[in-house]
C-alpha cells in the first residue's frame, strides 16, 4: 500500500502492536499520547552524487507559547529527521505561523526548546530560513539585489543561479513592483535558496496564487528539495498540496500535534492517486 504507511505514536505502542488501532483514531488530548517521532529512514538516496544532503534534524520539545492570557501552543512536540519534507495543516489561528516564528528565532517560546541537530537554539538561526506568506521584497532594490540581500561574498553569482532555478533570470534587473504576485513569491523563494538553508520553513507561500501557478510552484519546490534535501516544513491549508508534496503530514489542533501521518507514495505523485485521495479525506477529518 502506498497511502498511509504508518503513524508512529510512542515506540512502546508500536512494539505492542497497538499502533494499528490508533492509526485511525485521532490523538486527542485525552489520549495523552506523546507523538514525538523517531527518525526512520525514508529509503531515498541522500548521499547520491546529485543530491546535496543539507538537511538538519529539527526537534521541538514541549513547546508552549502564550500571548498574555491566550495560550497558542500547548505542549507541542515534533521531531523532524534531517532532510524530511513535512507539511503542517491546521485551522486558521491554530498557531502555525507563530510556530514558524519560534523555529526561525524571531520569537521565543514561553517554555520548551527548539533544537537543530541536537543543539538548543537561541535567537536567529543562520541555518533556518523562513519563506513568509507574503513575498516581503524590498521595493527599492532590484530583483537581483533582493535575492542577494545578505550580500555574502559572491552573492551576485549565487543570486543569479537561484533566479535561474526559479525561472526568473531574465528579470534580474527589474523593480519588484513590476512583477506579478507569483513572480514575487518566486523571487522570495530564490532569496531563501541563496541563504543555503539546512531547515527551510514555508509559511503558506502559495496561498495567494492561482491553481496553475501553484502547480508550477509545487513542481519547482519538489525539484529543489530533491536536489538540496533541506529539512522542509510547509504550512498549507490545502490538504491536496500537503499530500502531493510531503513525506509526512502533521495536523495541528488546540496548540499541539493532533495527527501525524507518513505519505510514502513515489514521486512525482499523481494527483489522481486513489490512496492519496483516501489519505486526504482522512486528514481533512482531523483538521
Amino acid at each position: 500500500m502506498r497511502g498511509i504507511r504508518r503513524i508512529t505514536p510512542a515506540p512502546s505502542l508500536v512494539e505492542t502492536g497497538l499502533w494499528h488501532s490508533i492509526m485511525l483514531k485521532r490523538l486527542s488530548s485525552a489520549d495523552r499520547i506523546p507523538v514525538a517521532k523517531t527518525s526512520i529512514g525514508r529509503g531515498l538516496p541522500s548521499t547520491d552524487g546529485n543530491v546535496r544532503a543539507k538537511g538538519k534534524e529539527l526537534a521541538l520539545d514541549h513547546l508552549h507559547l502564550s500571548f498574555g492570557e491566550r495560550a497558542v501552543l500547548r505542549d507541542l512536540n515534533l521531531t523532524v529527521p534531517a532532510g524530511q519534507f513535512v507539511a503542517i495543516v491546521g485551522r486558521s489561528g491554530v498557531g502555525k505561523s507563530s510556530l514558524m516564528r519560534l523555529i526561525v528565532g524571531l520569537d521565543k517560546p514561553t517554555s520548551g526548546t527548539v533544537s537543530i541537530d541536537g543543539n538548543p537554539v537561541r535567537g536567529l538561526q543562520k541555518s533556518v530560513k523562513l519563506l513568509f506568506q507574503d513575498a516581503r521584497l524590498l521595493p527599492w532594490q532590484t530583483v537581483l539585489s533582493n535575492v542577494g540581500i545578505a550580500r555574502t561574498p559572491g552573492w551576485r553569482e549565487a543570486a543569479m543561479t537561484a533566479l535561474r532555478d526559479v525561472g526568473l533570470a531574465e528579470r534580474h534587473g527589474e523593480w519588484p513592483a513590476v512583477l506579478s504576485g507569483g513572480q514575487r513569491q518566486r523571487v522570495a523563494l530564490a532569496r531563501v535558496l541563496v541563504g543555503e538553508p539546512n531547515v527551510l520553513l514555508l509559511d503558506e507561500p502559495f496561498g495567494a496564487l492561482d491553481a496553475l501557478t501553484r502547480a508550477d510552484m509545487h513542481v519547482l519546490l519538489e525539484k529543489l528539495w530533491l536536489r538540496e534535501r533541506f529539512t522542509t516544513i510547509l504550512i498549507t491549508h490545502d490538504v491536496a498540496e500537503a499530500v502531493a508534496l510531503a513525506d509526512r503530514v502533521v495536523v495541528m489542533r488546540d496548540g499541539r500535534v493532533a495527527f501525524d501521518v507518513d505519505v510514502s507514495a513515489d514521486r512525482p505523485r499523481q494527483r489522481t492517486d486513489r490512496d492519496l485521495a483516501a489519505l486526504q479525506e482522512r486528514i481533512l477529518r482531523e483538521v
Partner: protein
Amino acid sequence: MSQSLSFRSAVERAAPWFVPVGLLLIWELGARTGFIEARTLPAPSQVAVAFWESAKSGELGRNVLISFERAIIGLAIGGGLGFVLGILTGVSRRAELLLDSGLQMLRNVPHLAIIPMVILWFGIDETAKIFLVAVGTLFPVYLNTYHGIRTIDRGLIEMAEVNGLGKFAIFWRVLLPGAMPSVLVGLRYALGIMWLTLIVAETISASSGIGYMTMNAREFLQTDVVVLGILVYAILGKAADTATKLIENRVLAWHPAYHAGSVSR
C-alpha cells in the same frame, strides 16, 4: 488626419499657457491705457525693463546670490539637523524618549514669532537670517524622517533579520531607503518654509538680498522693482520644487508612482 492630430496635440501642449499669457496681455493693455495706474501696478513691460537694468548693473545677480546662499546654508543646517534627529528618534527608543516630546513642543512655536528675539541676539547679521531659516526647516524634515522610519513595514525588517542582516545593514538597506519617500516630503515642505522665512526675514532686517531689494524699492515707489522681486521669489520657489522632483525621480525610481513615464509634470 495625422495633421489634425498633431495640431490638436500642439494645442494641448500650449493650453496651460493660454490663461497666464492672456492675463499678461490684459494687464499690459490696462497699464498702457491708464486703466491701471503705474504706481499701483507697473506694466509687464516696465517690469521687464527693471529686470534688464538691475541685471545689467549686477545688482539683481548679487541680491539673488546672497538670498540663495542664505537659503541653502539655512536649509543645510536645519534640514540636516532635522534629518539626523529624525533618524535618531526613529531608530532608538531611548533617543525618542529623550528628544521627541521636547522637539514636538518647540515645533509648536511659530518660528517667525521669534524674529524680535533673533534680531536681539544676532542683530541684522547673516546669522539671524540663517538661524531663522534653519529653525523653520528643521521641523518638517525632522517629523517626516521620524515618521518615515517609524512606519516602515515591520515585516521587511523581520525578513532582513531572518536573512542574516546585521543592525547596520538593516539601517542602510531597509530603514533609510524605506524612509526616503517621507523624508523627501519633509524636504518639500522645508523648501516652501525656507523661502517664506527668508522673504520675511530679509524684508524686516537686511542690507542685501531680494527682500531688501524690494523693501528698498518700495521706499522709492519703484513698484516695477517690487514686482520684479516677487517674480524672482516665485521663480526660485519653482526652481527648488523642480530640483526636489528631480531628486525624487532619482532616489525613488523604484517607487511605482515615480516610474519613468508614469509621472507627467
